[in-house]
């Protein structure tokens, strides 16, 4: 038996013993996600237990080094862990912008001290991070950002405004792009970390078309940030930001994979019914669902290929942009079909039967997928330029 086969058996056994039954149910909504952090209230004992056990094992960040709170798994081992968790429908013990975005950036650009300190906090779910990138005038054109950090010797004084800060009102710390040199567009931005409880930081939730407010406007009024809280070099924050955006895009692309059920079409038999031939009793919707299932399964294969290639250093470095584009467009299509398949039931916005309009609100939420973290248009621009090498792109 190979080492990997043995590892699989060990993992299977550990999961069997340690993953609580309640944590083997699909994530049905925002409510089931464990973000953790200073102000977190666990939904139930199982959620807490599952996080603690994974933290102890390093399984919140299995491929990070053990020195930073990870399990130090190889690419092959990490894949087996993912497969085994998927096999029993285990929920992620911890969801975190720290894991998906800041962590990889720190691993690449952080000092050893920063890695030990911040990565450990992330791995243990102690600090919930938000991201300060976009500004009202700087959407797709991120690098035109205006938030300014004035150099005051051993600290900066930051003034300005961010927008689309995910859950800023619930987060503990922010990683934030701040202009530190007004004379140089690209090489005048620094990547700073600071506590959201620092005096001068205020947040204001933005109400979305879904009726929910997952994003905020965030204001900085003379916010003091010590000099050691910079990642990477002064004025070279754009390098960190670009690296991190790649990971963000990778993360968002996963939305296209849906809820784990292999067929969206089969889910519609309940609401639509079958005709005399046993086919969905709406031939044109059936056709759309079949095309969707083909595309979704193909994308699932692509996601596996992408992960395998990335982990082994084979993928094109701009490939996350393609994944983000394809995954988010697919997810939007999925939710259009969920709405169509559930007809007038899915139009209800407040009723109990509709769980407070869950389907409609989720559908509307997905419309942001192809905007946040770089629009589909920006992704296509990047593919044209960096992968296809088209002129003037």
């Amino acid at each position, binding site marked *: 038996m190979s080492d990997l086969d043995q590892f699989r058996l060990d993992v299977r056994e550990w999961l069997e013993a340690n993953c609580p039954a309640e944590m083997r149910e699909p994530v049905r909504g925002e409510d089931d996600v464990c973000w953790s952090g200073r102000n977190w209230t666990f939904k139930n004992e199982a959620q807490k237990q599952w996080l603690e056990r994974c933290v102890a094992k390093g399984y919140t960040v299995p491929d990070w080094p053990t020195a930073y709170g990870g399990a130090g798994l190889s690419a092959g081992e990490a894949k087996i862990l993912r497969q085994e968790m998927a096999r029993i429908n285990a929920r992620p013990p911890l969801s975190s912008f720290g894991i998906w975005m800041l962590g990889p950036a720190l691993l690449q650009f952080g000092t050893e001290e920063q890695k030990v300190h911040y990565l450990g906090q992330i791995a243990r779910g102690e600090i919930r991070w938000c991201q300060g990138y*976009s500004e009202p005038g700087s*959407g*797709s*054109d991120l690098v*035109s950002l205006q938030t300014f950090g004035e150099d005051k010797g051993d600290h900066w004084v930051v003034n300005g405004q961010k*927008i*689309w800060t995910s859950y800023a009102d619930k987060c503990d710390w922010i990683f934030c792009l701040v202009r530190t040199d007004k004379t140089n567009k690209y090489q005048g931005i620094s990547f700073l970390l600071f506590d959201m409880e620092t005096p001068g930081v205020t947040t204001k939730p*933005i*109400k*979305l*078309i879904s*009726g929910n407010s997952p994003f905020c406007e965030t204001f900085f009024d003379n916010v003091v940030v010590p000099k050691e809280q910079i990642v990477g070099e002064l004025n070279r924050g754009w390098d960190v930001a670009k690296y991190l955006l790649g990971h963000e895009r990778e993360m968002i692309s996963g939305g296209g994979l849906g809820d784990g059920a292999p067929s969206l079409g089969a889910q519609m038999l309940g*609401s*639509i019914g079958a005709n005399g031939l046993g086919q969905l009793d*709406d*031939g*044109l*919707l059936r056709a*759309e669902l079949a095309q969707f299932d083909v595309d979704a399964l193909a994308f699932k294969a692509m996601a596996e290929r992408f992960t395998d290639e990335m982990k082994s250093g084979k993928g094109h470095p701009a490939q996350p942009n393609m994944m983000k584009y394809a995954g988010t467009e697919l997810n*939007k299509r999925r939710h*259009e079909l969920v*709405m*169509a398949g*559930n*007809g*007038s*039931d*899915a*139009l*209800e*916005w*407040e*009723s109990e039967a*509709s769980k407070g*309009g869950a389907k*409609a609100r989720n559908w*509307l939420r997905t*419309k*942001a997928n*192809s*905007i*946040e973290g770089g*629009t*589909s*248009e920006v992704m*296509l621009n990047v593919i044209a330029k960096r992968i296809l090498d088209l002129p003037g792109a």
Partner: protein
Amino acid sequence: MPMYLNEDQAMLRDSAREFLKSEAPVSHLRKLRDDNCKDGFRHALWKQFGEMGFTGILIGEDDGGLGLGHVEAGVVLEEIGRNLSPSPFLTTAIAGVAALNHGGQHLKDKFFPGILAGDTVLALAIDEGAKHRPSHITTKAERSGNGFKLTGNKQFVIQGASADALIVAARTAGAAGETDGLTLFAVDKDAANMSMDSTRLVDSSMAAHVTFDGVEVDGDAVIGEVDNGWQVLSSLLRAGRAGSAAELVGVGAGAMDMTVDYLKQRKQFGRLIGEFQALQHRAAHLYSEMEIARAAVLKAQQLLDEGKDSAEIYVSVAKAKAGRTTNLTVREGVQMHGGIGMTDEYDIGFYMKRDRALNEFMGDANFHAGRVAEIFGY
């Protein structure tokens, strides 16, 4: 009939456009939603519809109406769509009147004056499942004394809780899936044993689930002939589908105008985003599709007004084409607006929500494309 509005129709469009832009723009809908308005529309606006004469478009001159046609109905509905103005116009003055025009004079006398005045509201109790399947009606209407007793459930009854009467499709004979054996009834709101559960929809309209638990109606409530209700229902559906297609075109036109305006204002990378060719081409494609959808809708309306058999297929073409096109337009609209398009504060999201509900109303684009295939025999 040439495929453009004649002078009278163009005048009607201008006055509807001015009236709705002034009295019921998107901010009107927003306020109504924020006020948690339980009707989903303002009775005062409906009264104004009466004063403008809109409510009498399909009512014959003998009955005090304007005796106009579906083209004129569509002219008003396109403006309603453009402004997302909430009103009982489509259900009451178009689909409802189309059904009642098959009814006896007593029904016309009972309902038309109130409709003409912008007082009376009708709601349509047609759908029984999540998807529109009008021939699959199972609500029973059993003979009972001089009248009938209705038992069954309906859903997606728009403005049901605010209506003075419901137009109810029920089965007096036959089985689900058959078009024979249906009968249409006008049921007063205060009928005993009828209960409603009203809920807000994604587009801020109100819709009811209605339960008929042995609702007694007398013979006068029958619209048209007993067992031959498919004919009445078909008129109602043709009017409602052509009308909702027209409203969809208005929704798409409103969303496109907002979006094209935004492309001319928003700057990124130091340029107006409307300068980016990829967005230009997508906007030009939308324009092309919207023009074609509008033509399909006008054709359907003209054929209806001319009483042509081919109206049947063109009504489905119109609803399918307008549905698919406006859906594309609102999706592109939100995407081209970027982050701001996702905020509740901005209006484009209201267009997306209205499109969703209107697409579902009386059969979505897939339903109607499937109907085109069926009518053509494949």
